Structures are given as C-alpha cells and as structure tokens.
C-alpha cells in the first residue's frame, strides 16, 4: 500500500451549508500528516468521513485501499480518536483493553498494557479520576492496540498541558517509528506540527488549499520583498498567497513554482506558522493553489 489515503472532490453538506467541499489530496503511507484549518473549516467533518462514521455528500475517499463504510473489515483497519476522547468514566483502563480484545479481530493487548505501564498510568484506576493527559493516552493506547493501518486523531492534544502533549506526541511517534502506520492529526499548534509531522494538509474556507510534504512546504515558500512595483511577473510564474503594499515597498507571500529569476526581489524563508497563516487568511482560494502531495524530486 503506497498511498494510505486518497480523496477526490470530497464534500459534505448539512442542509444548505457545505462543511467541506472540493477536498482532494493524496497521503503516502507511513506519513504523519498534520491537518490544519480554522475552527469550522471542516477538519472534524473530513476525519469522520475518512473513519467511516459519516457519509460524503459528493466525491470519494479511499483509506487503506478501501472505501470508508460501516463494515467490520474497514473498521479494523482504521483507528479513530474523537476530540472528546470518549471513554466510559466508571471503567478502568483494564476494562477498556478487555473490551477492545473482545471486539477487534486484531488486538495487541500486551503492547497496550506495556505502553500504559511505561507511562505510569495505572490499569485499575477509573477513567473519571484521571487527568486529561492520561485519558488521552488511554484513548491512544486503545486506538493503537487494534493495530490499525491508518490512525485518525481529531485534535487530541488541544486540551492538554505541555508535558502531557509532549508525552502524547512521543507515544505517537514511537508507534509510527516502524513505518507501518499512517497518521492524520488535526491540530492548531504549529510547534507540535513542526516537530512530529512530515506532511501537511491545510483547509481554508472548507477547501483544501495545500497538501504537501512538510520539507517541500518549507523549501518552496518565501517572502519576497522589493521596493514598490508591479507584481504581475511574479504572479504569473508563482503562486501568490498574500500581497501587502506599503508606501515604499511591497511584500509577497509566495509559493515558488520554479527558480526566481529576478534578483531584485529579496527572498526570505518563512516559518511554518507564517506559511499557514498566509493560507488560512486566503478567503478566496486561487485556482492555481498547489495541492500536489509530492513535487517530483
């Protein structure tokens, strides 16, 4: 399986409102992909459709070479952790592991127990008495113990303190270290994304505006600065995300589609946060917005 997830013009409508539309991207296997977007941009909608919990209104999706559906074979391949981390409050972690062992065709109980033990999370403590970070770890352990090929995480660390977040991402990275797992992780926190993700999908205005390997993103996006002048030449060749004109100079946030021939433009590297803000600030996505998963090379 070389492509873990593929979507084509995937869309979901609730009544008259489109929560997600024209969502198209390919995610190669083994990646840890960050899913970014403003609140309401469609991240949860997308993840639920990929998990088979929600039916698309238009378009198609393919996850682990299968179409998401409410059937046991598909459900066994995909792990999902909802934002609220639903667990039975009166149960213990051991109860949840036992339930997982009963319900899933593939279940690595020992790995789940070892993981929780190494995090010093007691197996016989009630979930209701655990901290947010511990609950998130239990949720993750359950999702991983079923040996899925694809793991979908909906803002799992949003409510966690920095230490709990770090531990969560460590656990996640370790689980993905052997390359057998593909992960999509929706998040707002740029620092987390920079550390643990190697692929990025950005949603703006409920559409995909960027879907690329993180290294590509960082190496192709630049801030171009020059004394105030006409920008048509640059706009023709490259993808301009944002233009800012002051009295004396003009700033362009661009994605370079080739070498920059004009040496009078001063090019500075952009941080991931600045790149993301430029995309998220685009209210009208440009038709040429780049949504390749891998640029050749």
């Amino acid at each position: 399986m070389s492509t873990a997830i593929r979507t084509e013009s995937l869309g979901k409508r609730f009544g008259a409102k489109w929560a997600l539309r024209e969502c198209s991207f390919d995610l190669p296997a083994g990646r840890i992909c960050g899913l970014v977007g403003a609140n309401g941009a469609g991240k949860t909608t997308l993840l639920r459709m990929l998990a088979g919990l929600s039916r698309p209104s238009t378009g198609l999706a393919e996850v682990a070479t299968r179409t998401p559906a409410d059937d046991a074979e598909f459900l066994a391949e995909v792990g999902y952790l909802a934002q609220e981390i639903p667990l039975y409050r009166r149960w213990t972690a051991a109860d949840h592991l036992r339930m997982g062992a009963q319900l899933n065709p593939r279940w690595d109980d020992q790995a789940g127990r070892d993981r929780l033990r190494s995090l010093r999370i007691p197996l016989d403590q009630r979930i209701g008495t655990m901290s947010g970070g511990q609950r998130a770890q239990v949720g993750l352990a359950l999702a991983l113990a079923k040996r899925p090929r694809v793991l979908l995480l909906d803002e799992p660390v949003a409510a966690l303190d920095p230490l709990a977040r770090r531990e969560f991402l460590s656990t996640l990275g370790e689980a993905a270290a052997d390359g057998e797992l593909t992960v999509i992780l929706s998040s707002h926190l740029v620092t987390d994304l920079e550390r643990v993700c190697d692929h990025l999908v950005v949603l703006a205005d409920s559409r995909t505006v960027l879907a690329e390997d993180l290294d590509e993103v960082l190496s192709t996006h630049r801030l171009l600065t020059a004394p105030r002048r006409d920008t048509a030449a640059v706009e023709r060749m490259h993808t301009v995300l944002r233009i800012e004109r002051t009295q004396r100079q003009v700033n362009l946030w661009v994605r370079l589609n080739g070498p920059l021939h004009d040496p009078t433009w001063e090019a500075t590297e952009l941080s991931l946060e600045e790149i993301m803000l430029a995309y998220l600030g685009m209210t009208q996505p440009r038709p040429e917005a780049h949504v390749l998963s891998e640029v050749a090379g």
Partner: protein
Amino acid sequence: MITFHLSTRSNVPPYVQLVEQVRQALLNGTLQPGDRLPTVKDVVGSLAINPNTVLKAYRDLEREGLVEGRQGVGTFVLRRPDGPPPNEQAALRRSLASWIAKAQRAGLADADIESMVRTVLRTAASEEAIA
C-alpha cells in the same frame, strides 16, 4: 550513548541539528567508533519528533561514511569525521568562548554575532575559491 536535544528557535532544520550533534560528539570524543546510536524509536520517544527526521539524519551520516546501519541490530559509529583531535577541539572551543564573551561585552547581540560568523565564513569560502 549520546542523548539528543533540539533547539526549536534555531533556523537549522531538526535533522541537520541531529547530524551536527553526532559530529560534535565524535569530534570531542563523547562518541567512539563502535558505539551504537540510539534507535529511531528511542529518539522519537524522547524528543517527540517525526521518525523520518531521525532516519534522514542517520542516512546523511551513513552517506558521509561516519556510521553504518545493521539490519535488526542498530546503527553503529564507524569512524571520526575529519578534523582536529579532541584536545585541539577543546582548545578551539575555549578560544571561541572567550571571543564571544568579548563580543558580547562590546555590545553585540547573539544574532549579530551569528551573522558576523556567517559573513566571515562566506568571505573565507570565496577567498579560498579565488586562491
């Protein structure tokens, strides 16, 4: 065993930081040929970074001939990178430290120091090219 750390404020990409830390460790003797580098899993576990970052760093080191990955066993150090022996390294480091202290006392900020170093390096490189 070497332990890695990452500086998020630095402009240097994470995998390059890892490579540099291994090189430094080899140069100043913390790592010896034959030592085993931490597994990808261990590094990811302690730093919470992407496994591919570690793989890339180890691949780079392998390409330079400094380490060798053995299937199922681990990644082992082959040799030291070309450069001065540990005690000379230490001496250079000490004189750098005192120069930096001097520059800071003169009023240079860290960023200014860094860009001065970069400029001098660039000049030295182009002079060498001409020579």
